[in-house]
């Protein structure tokens, strides 16, 4: 690798696959090896710009790697100053990476977005716009609205969570009028992806909501260090 060039990182793998191919801007992929984890990188003059093409290309590299090895996908734009800094990083975060590789081995990420109907049977609706509620009535209305939204989301999330190794609810708070918004990420065994998809279709019909499920994705949501 040419010294003095920026190292762009696509993922951390348990071992480098045989043939690596090309990455962003046609740069050749290379492996930087640490004691127990390997970074798959390419060298560039400056950080690549984040346009739609670049994002899909980053994704393509990660998905190709996943065909052969276990991958911890990097966030887009992850760079190191050079190969030695990359090696140092692999050493200093070795335990974290090795642990995460076992968490995601044999699994993919599935994304679920939904807008669920939330039945608003609160007295506020019955009361009408003119009547001024008391403080207590106001809190009760808000409580009921919150519980109704939580129940609606659990009807979708509950069954899906059971089909996944791990799950994350990414968005459960809604602005007024969007209390039924749901966004979840699920780490699912490769062999269970079809069953998961079928369950989503079934739940969408059952709950009469708008539901979208995309995937399989590399496990981006399950390798970020900070709890989300």
């Amino acid at each position, binding site marked *: 690798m040419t010294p003095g060039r920026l190292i762009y990182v696509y993922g951390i793998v348990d071992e480098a696959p045989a043939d690596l191919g090309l990455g962003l801007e046609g740069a050749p992929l290379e492996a930087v090896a640490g004691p127990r984890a390997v970074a798959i990188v390419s060298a560039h003059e400056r950080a690549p710009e*984040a346009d739609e093409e670049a994002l899909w290309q980053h994704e393509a590299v990660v998905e190709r790697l996943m065909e052969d090895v276990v991958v911890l996908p990097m*966030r887009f734009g992850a*760079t190191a100053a050079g190969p030695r800094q990359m090696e140092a990083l692999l050493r200093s975060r070795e335990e974290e990476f090795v642990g995460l590789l076992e968490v995601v081995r044999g699994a993919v990420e599935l994304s679920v977005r939904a807008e669920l109907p939330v039945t608003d049977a609160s007295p506020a609706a019955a009361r009408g716009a003119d009547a001024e509620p008391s403080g207590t009535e106001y809190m009760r209305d808000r409580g009921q609205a919150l519980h109704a939204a939580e129940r609606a989301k659990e009807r979708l999330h509950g069954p899906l969570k059971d089909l996944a190794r791990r799950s994350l609810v990414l968005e459960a708070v809604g602005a007024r009028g969007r209390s039924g918004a749901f966004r979840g990420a699920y780490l699912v065994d490769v062999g269970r992806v079809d069953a998961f998809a079928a369950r989503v279709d079934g739940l969408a019909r059952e709950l009469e909501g708008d539901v979208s499920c995309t995937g399989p994705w590399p496990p981006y949501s399950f390798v970020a260090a900070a709890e989300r």
Partner: protein
Amino acid sequence: MNERPIRRTHDVSLLDLVDRLLDGGVVIGGDITLAVADVDLVYVGLRALVASVETIERELGVALSASGPVLERDAL
């Protein structure tokens, strides 16, 4: 409001791609390169704020408000 008509099935795929690549994944170094999208650092900080506030609220049961004229600390 800027609503573009949804025509292609891969629009929701693009949305999920962007969410994952720009908000997930392993992070190295303290700073994400500023070449990442057209997003102000203020927004990046805001997102961290939201995540931390919700974590605090959920896990520690700590009052979010300091004592004030009406919302007293011991009330929450």
